[in-house]
């Protein structure tokens, strides 16, 4: 397996062929409680899509609806040209890797992996061959005869993966499979999962609340908030061009600035710069790494920068960088990410390029 991960390419959902999965206006309420409201999205063949959201965003419910463990209150799901949502889970060509693995305790590892194949009444030889291949793919061949209780969490997770993939589903669903692992193992598994997906070529739908994880692994990220699709785009785009304030804050750190546009110029606290926006109030997302400390820079970044002064009120060491909290004359507080230095104090001269301030929609206010 290659150890260099190729940069992820943005895949547009309509790159020629018909999408693999088409989710159309799916809504779900539990009693009077709406959990999903009108979700529509499409998943392409061979794509790694992450459904990202906080707890309560509806991401797990959406996954379970795709798997067949819940039925939607309204809406349809199509897989290629057949309706998926009217089928029970055991007739869908979809398999799931469960959050706590759900390995069968009374079966050995190989019996677990071969379960779906045996249920489908495939010939014994074929079952044995495919199980062997699957175990080799997740590097668990040595544990074939063990019982799940005797292997570690990380190993159980691989078995859960093998058990799902051995059935050659059209779509693999992963319900926060890495959340029970510790940090280092988690990072390792992220890389392995991504390579696996490339190798196998099946579409993966991955659910997580960890935005870093989403950015590392996905071809596209679908951000869910309170049952609605906030934004769906590639990691770079969702990071660099967040559509809403929520997205900007959920993914990575950001500074949210409020301003007023008049006559093609925005006034934001004591700063102003020209923008091509209609008159009225506007919000900007400005990432901490886009604010530069002028004294450190090798000269200034050049023309077209906004400059201002601020006083350091807090500094946090982040290994290779520092995250500074800076207060400006008008009381505006900003976070700044900069190269690390032992001691920051006093007044700094700061600058940013106006194109790095991305205009975002302010979604209905929530805490």
């Amino acid at each position, binding site marked *: 397996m290659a150890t260099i991960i190729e940069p992820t390419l943005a895949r547009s959902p309509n790159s020629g062929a018909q999408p693999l999965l088409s989710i159309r206006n799916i809504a779900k309420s539990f009693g009077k409680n709406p959990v999903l409201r009108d979700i529509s999205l499409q998943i392409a063949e061979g794509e790694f899509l992450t459904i990202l959201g906080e707890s309560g965003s509806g991401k797990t419910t959406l996954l379970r609806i795709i798997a*067949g*463990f819940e*039925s939607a209150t309204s809406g349809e799901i199509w897989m290629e040209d057949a309706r998926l949502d*009217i*089928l*029970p889970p055991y007739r869908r060509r979809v398999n799931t890797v469960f959050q706590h693995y759900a390995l069968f305790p009374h079966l050995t590892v190989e019996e677990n992996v071969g379960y779906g194949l045996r249920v489908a009444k495939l010939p014994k030889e074929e079952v044995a061959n495919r199980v062997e291949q699957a175990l080799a793919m997740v590097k668990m061949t040595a544990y074939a005869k063990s019982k799940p209780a005797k292997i570690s969490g990380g190993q159980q997770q691989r078995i859960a993966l093998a058990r799902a993939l051995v059935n050659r589903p059209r779509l693999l669903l992963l319900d926060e499979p890495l959340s029970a692992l510790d940090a280092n193992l988690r990072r390792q598994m992220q890389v392995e999962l991504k390579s696996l997906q490339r190798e196998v070529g099946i579409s993966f739908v991955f659910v997580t609340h960890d935005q870093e994880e989403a950015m590392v692994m996905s071809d596209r990220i679908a951000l869910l908030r309170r049952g609605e699709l906030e934004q769906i785009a590639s990691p770079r785009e969702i990071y660099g061009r967040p559509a809403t304030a929520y997205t900007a804050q959920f993914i990575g750190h950001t500074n949210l600035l409020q301003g007023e546009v008049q006559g093609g110029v925005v006034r934001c606290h004591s700063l102003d710069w020209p923008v091509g926006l209609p008159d009225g109030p506007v919000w900007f997302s400005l990432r901490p790494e886009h604010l530069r400390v002028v004294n450190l820079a090798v000269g200034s970044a050049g023309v077209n920068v906004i400059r201002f002064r601020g006083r350091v009120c807090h500094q946090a060491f982040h290994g290779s960088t520092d995250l500074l909290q800076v207060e400006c004359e008008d009381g505006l507080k900003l976070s700044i990410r900069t190269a690390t230095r032992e001691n920051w104090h006093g007044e700094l001269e700061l600058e940013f390029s106006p194109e790095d301030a991305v205009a975002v929609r302010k979604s209905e206010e929530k805490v």
Partner: protein
Amino acid sequence: MEFPVSAARSTSRWLPWHAIAVFSFLYLPIITLIVYSFNGPGVGGFPPHNLTLDWYRMLFVDDAIWESVLNSLKVAIAAIAISLTFGIPAALALDRVEFPGKALFRRLVLLPLILPGIITGLSLSILFHDSHVKFSILTIVLGHGTALISVATTEVFAGLQKLDRAQEEASLDLGANYWQTFWRITIPNLRLSIIGAALLIFTLSMDEIAVSFFLIGRDNTLPLEIWGRLRRGITPEINAISSIIFVFSLIAIVTWYRLRASAEAKVEIATEFETTVQG
């Protein structure tokens, strides 16, 4: 777990019917018994007619029955005392102390629950006979106490699993000795288990007949009094007292169950609180 509409559910359609059938099987005899306690002509005969409260009236002036009820109450309360006095330490010992013969002890304590009552009753009666102990209320008390220690032990042991050991450690840390900690911390935390156990022991003791059969002296407990009359012939008065027993048992068990449920709810709330506080 709901499936989309077209999922085949035919195999599970007979399950509710089976459940209804089993519940009917379990309850119809008792309901019949209660109905016939109001039946004029007596037990048997269908349909019931001439409904009357006569049998209950007869019951209320039946001194022998009430004497046996009093005896049963005495026995039950004494049984609770014995079972708790020995059952609570037993549960603590099983939970906290390693001692030789622990595995044997655990099995031995639980045996009377699983063994047919005749074995417990007979072996105890041999003991009393050979020790020249007169058969009386006392021997019945000793029999019930022995048989029901396991109930106290099981309930308290379960309660101990939910007890936060750190509370006792905190008590010791703050200067209380073992005895004080036991009374101020351990027992109050086990309150619900103890009450539940007491309720269960009370009900089981009041109904007990298999063991008591072999330990009886001159005075009857309620079940033995009924048993004696049954050997002589059936009267609906027995239906009446049986119905009353049923109602009391029903109340006792439902109360026990509710206590259990609220104890569990408290644990859930406590652990939820912990996890929210820890973020």
